[in-house]
């Protein structure tokens, strides 16, 4: 089954984020008050791992699982979409303490109220799709 490896990667990710408590509203609040190193340590170590890993992939031209060259997509240039969109997401992140990945993970932990956040997030995505041509990017 082609999708099994992605499903297993997802399980791994869900376990790690839950055990790291990066899905916890409390940890996000604590982070925004600079009252713990925990979240900064996580993000910093993840970044360090990611930067080193991607440099190795690029330097040695590592092939992917299917033997194809790995093509790491560059982000589109721009400013307004990143700063305004980022700020709006940040407001939501600190309010309900979760980002899109943890929404699904928290449903698994039995936090049913997150379903309302998921409905809101789908609506928000939909609204963006409707009005995106009128927004600065």
């Amino acid at each position: 089954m082609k999708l099994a490896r992605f499903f297993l990667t997802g399980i791994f990710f869900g376990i790690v984020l839950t055990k790291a408590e990066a899905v916890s509203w409390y940890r996000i609040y604590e982070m925004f008050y600079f009252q713990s190193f925990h979240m900064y340590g996580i993000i910093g170590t993840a970044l360090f791992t990611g930067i080193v890993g991607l440099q190795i992939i690029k330097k040695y031209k590592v092939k992917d699982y299917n033997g194809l060259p790995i093509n790491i997509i560059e982000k589109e240039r721009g400013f307004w979409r990143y700063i305004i969109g980022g700020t709006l997401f940040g407001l939501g992140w600190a309010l309900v303490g979760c980002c899109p990945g943890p929404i699904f993970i928290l449903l698994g932990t039995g936090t049913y109220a997150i379903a309302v956040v998921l409905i809101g997030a789908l609506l928000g995505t939909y609204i963006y799709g409707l009005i995106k041509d009128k927004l600065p990017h």
Partner: protein
Amino acid sequence: MNYIFGTWHWAISGFLIGLTMLILTYFGKSFGMSSNLRTMCSMAGAGKFSDFFKLDWREQKWSLAVVLGAFVGGFIAFYFLSDGSGVNINPETIAQLQTLGIDAPNGKLMPDAIFSVATLQSPKGFAILLLGGLLIGFGTRYAGGCTSGHAISGLSNLQLPSLVAVIGFFIGGLAMAHYILPLIFKTA
């Protein structure tokens, strides 16, 4: 066994999150969670109303499989790999939350003041959750990514747009935590 059932150390957690991104890169994909929200809108037929959702969601099945796995992973971690000793946040943070009427963790991941079923059934509680979701959905799509897509993948690839987005995440997050949350909860 406390190192499995308690809070995982930040260095181990961070390394494993970075590894998740690298594994998906090795599979020829990219690490990003918020794009699934767009895919789900497409599946629900949003393409009829906006070209933004006219995409073949079958090509995104791999990403939906990741999300489904994350759901199962959350279930496993919570019910089989936890002993309730976690979420030991700073006592100062707990005291501060108390002044806002928000309960201490005592091993819980989420405060009842925001996520309990009783809170969910109050108009204010429901509105907070829905508003949070709207901001997350709209903001991540506008910015083209969330914590996974920008803060981890994008910054790992040294992308300037991702740095701008992460600065935005913190502008919004700091404004909410320091100025807006107190207004929402003080009178509660």
